[in-house]
């Protein structure tokens, strides 16, 4: 695998990787960081990844790097919030700036799930991959992928933002 080939891979798939990360982090700088992380991991794994799988690989790893970033940011915000209770002058720094607060809560909850669950949900919801495709990418069975999805969604249902959101009507259950 030559450096030219590696560079060609990055040039071909950087926009898709960036979009995948942006959906989760919601801002340019963090999406760039996640894409950089995915690109450098690809450099380490460049002999194991094949031309046919590299696009899906970058999107998946960029999505995961984005989830990791959201998780770290949430931890930092919690620390800042605790500090702001003691020192009111840092209160403005604790407020999420990149996303609307409601959306940030949802993404924080997603990132707080066990990594496999958040990964499967993000690939299904944001990348719109089928469970067969997710299973192939993660090297797990389709049944296992569905189990991660079910458990993750069931956990997310317990969060307060679900109770305050507008619920679908009964007749929506019979649509499609």
């Amino acid at each position: 695998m030559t450096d030219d080939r590696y560079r060609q891979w990055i040039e071909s798939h950087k926009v898709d990787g960036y979009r995948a990360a942006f959906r989760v982090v919601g801002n340019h700088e963090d999406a760039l960081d996640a894409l950089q992380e995915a690109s450098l991991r690809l450099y380490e794994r460049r002999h194991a990844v094949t031309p046919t799988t590299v696009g899906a690989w970058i999107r998946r790893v960029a999505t995961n790097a984005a989830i990791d970033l959201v998780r770290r940011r949430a931890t930092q915000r919690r620390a800042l919030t605790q500090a702001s209770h003691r020192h009111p002058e840092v209160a403005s720094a604790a407020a999420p700036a990149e996303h609307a607060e409601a959306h940030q809560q949802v993404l924080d909850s997603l990132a707080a799930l066990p990594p496999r669950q958040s990964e499967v949900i993000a690939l299904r919801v944001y990348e719109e991959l089928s469970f067969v495709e997710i299973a192939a990418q993660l090297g797990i069975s389709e049944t296992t992928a569905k189990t991660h999805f079910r458990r993750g969604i069931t956990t997310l249902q317990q969060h307060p933002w679900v109770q305050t959101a507008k619920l679908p009507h009964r007749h929506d259950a019979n649509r499609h």
Partner: protein
Amino acid sequence: MTDLSHESCRNDLPLLASGDLSRERQQEVRAHIAECPSCHAEWQRGTTVLRELRAAGATPDSSSTAALEDFFERRIAPEVRARRRRGARVLGVVARAAVVLLAFSAGMLLERLTSTATPPASVPQPSPSQASRVDRTALDQAYEQSSRGQHGLARGLLALRSLRDS
């Protein structure tokens, strides 16, 4: 109420919400939640989770993706160069360590082949009065082995150097 159990129905509600059930299974689950208030409430929560997740997912505008033009030069190439330099340094250290180890082993082998030393006589169990003398003998033996090792290393390095120069 349908034949479907609550547990079996609830297991499939997230997949109903994401549209991943077979047509036949969808009909069974929908028939159940139409008559079961608790499963219906669960389905509502699952659907809400997916809707909120989709709403929270942001889409970049075209100006953001245009800013990726020099992404490789700016954010990847310097990192890759730094990693290569680090890799080369580690390889250098490992290579030097391997040369020293090889020289040491070769020297020890040469030393053993050419040594005419007789095997040490068995040391009798010391009485308390002889203890300091026996300790002295053990120290001498250790020193002898150590200097033999150093000597072997030096010979090995000299042998490697002459191989390199020839």
